[in-house]
């Protein structure tokens, strides 16, 4: 019996898109569940807003300056 390629391709399409959506739908459900559990039972400690922020900011500026300098150096 001759196989009709087009029919096969259409079957693949339904099977494939079905599996992709099945997978992603399950992923969405479980990741929502995961996020819920994590926020409920393992909440992230609030980053304390302290005076340490200022020096960190300074550090970041230094890092940015260094990074820029190095990037410039590489290109130059």
């Amino acid at each position, binding site marked *: 019996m001759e196989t*009709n*390629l*087009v029919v*096969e*391709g*259409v079957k*693949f*399409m339904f*099977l*494939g*898109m079905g*599996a*992709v*959506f*099945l*997978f*992603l*739908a*399950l*992923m*969405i459900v*479980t*990741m*929502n569940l*995961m*996020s819920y559990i*994590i*926020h409920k039972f*393992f*909440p*992230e400690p609030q980053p304390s807003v302290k005076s340490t922020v200022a020096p960190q900011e300074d550090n970041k500026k230094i890092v940015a300056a260094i990074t820029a300098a190095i990037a410039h150096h590489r290109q130059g």
Partner: protein
Amino acid sequence: MTTHLEETYKAQPFMDMIEGFLHSTGIDALMNPRANEMNAHGEPISDFHKSWGRVIMILITFLLFYLAIARGFEPLLLLPIGFGGLLANIPLAGIGGDTGFLGIIYHMGLSNQLFPILIFMGVGAMTDFGPLLSNPKTALLGGAAQFGIFGTLVGAVVLSEYTPFFDFTLQQASAISIIGGADGPTSIFIATNLAPELLGAIAVASYSYMAMVPIIQPPIMKALTTDAERRIKMTTLRHVSRLEKLVFPILVLVLAILILPDATPLIGAFMFGNFLKETGVVDRLSDTMQNALINIVTIFLGLAVGSKLAADQFLVPDTLAILLLGIIAFSVGTAAGVIMAKIMNLFPGHKVNPLIGSAGVSAVPMAARVSNKVGMEYDRTNMLLMHAMGPNVAGVIGSAVAAGILMSIFK
């Protein structure tokens, strides 16, 4: 004193040596194709593929160089692939053959699919699933875009069945359609598995179209959306905790184990890289994956793929079909992503800007940037970039799932 010599070297008059030298030049080999020259697989080649075919291929690699350098077409991959193609088309040298260095690199890591797996690890270590985690439903856009793959598969079999020019097997049609996944390593992985004879054309089409995303996608996006839709503002993304990012790669891998084990080589490698990065305790390994390792493998992968650009394999009608089907795949995937967003907006809840639907094809991060750029054309305050990264990375997962399905069908 010269006995062991005579067995391996035959003395000859100087004029014969000069003639021999002239006979060993590339010009001569291109002008007068050798009857006994075989391709990298030891099969005979047509005279055209030994002469003008090679010249044309070399010019095509120059075109790839031009596109990569002057137009910024995925140079990280297209330059090594192009140079590999240039070397593979040199007459007499056999660089792409089993004992040539391209052939050695090919057998070291491409014929066994190790290189795309390692690339995937590095890409995983570079990926941030934060945007997807903060808006999970956008994953559906990354699913819809896979219609680019399966729609094209149907197109390829229609071409084979109803035109006299093409005759793709289902395996070949599947390998071609994966171009619609807009994901280089996945394309190479599947092509090596299902249709290694088409690897060169598929890889070149895949990376070229990924580079052309800013040209291919905007007209389709604009044609399928209304002005109001393009101006939809999406809500600010919520903060994602470190633990969510840490658990997510394992979660996806476990899902893949339960539902589609055939996708786990790709998804497992990707999530390995991502997981190592997110742990934050093995920075030296994740840095190496993102730099030294992925760079070395990119060079090798590119050269090895390039070895499949030999004239006798690339200058065939199939290549034109692959290029045609590839651009169809990208267009269909783009359209499907946009339409899916519009369908999602029929349901209650926060509205989705359909311009981020096109990012579902993956082509990370180019497609997400295109979403952002087109969005800003209509409202300069509407930053879609991070919103588009969700479907963008979901598109990678979606393509890997699609690849797994194809692998499982033909196993």
